[in-house]
């Protein structure tokens, strides 16, 4: 009986898909927003090195941080752009009032 039992296959080098948000990290760093996206790239690299090392819990934690920093970069960038637009509109309004 015990001879028929086969052990479960050992985990491969990348057994689970843990999102590393690398695309968002690159988008927020190079394509818009704030350089805070750089922090997201650091965590993206950590996710993949921890996945490769089999540290799933560590990879999940790094994944959370990668997402968080990409969102910070995008959020602050968006807030800044919104403020900028408001500023332009207000300046335009003042300009229009002064010219009357």
């Amino acid at each position: 009986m015990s001879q028929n039992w086969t052990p479960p296959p050992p985990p491969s080098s990348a057994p689970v898909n843990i999102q590393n948000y690398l695309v968002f990290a690159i988008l927020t760093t190079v394509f818009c927003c704030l350089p805070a996206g750089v922090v997201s790239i650091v965590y993206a690299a950590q996710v993949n090195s921890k996945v490769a090392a089999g540290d799933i819990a560590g990879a999940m934690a790094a994944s959370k941080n990668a997402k968080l920093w990409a969102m910070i970069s995008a959020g602050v960038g968006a807030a800044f752009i919104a403020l900028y637009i408001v500023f332009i509109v207000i300046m335009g309004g003042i300009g229009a009032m002064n010219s009357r």
Partner: protein
Amino acid sequence: MVADETFYQRLKVSAVWCVLALGATYLYLFNPANGAGYPACPFRMITGLQCPGCGTLRGLHQLLHGHPLAAFKLNPLMVISLPFLLLVLFLSTRTAVTGRSQPKLFIPAKYIWIFLGVVVFFWVFRNTPLYPFVS
């Protein structure tokens, strides 16, 4: 792939393509180098220094007009990272169209660390007088 997952993937990919089409049209028509209603970079506005993303919109405008060299001069990092982003977009689109999940793209951590090094180096280097391009 589960039907729900396929639907979600198709919705996501369609949304990305719509945003890309609108953005590319606007970028093609209006050159960010002339202002044209584009927001300024917050980092550059506050510090006066260039960030790794400065010149990306102007560079994309040049790329859309078929001038890769001009794009490279405005932001080489953007030109270098574009193929990777397009590959991810292509893979996601293929998954959405076929409805079958593909093996996930796994980039060895080593390459992400190298990319990080390139980003940080470029960030510093482009703010020194040694940097050959003006953007």
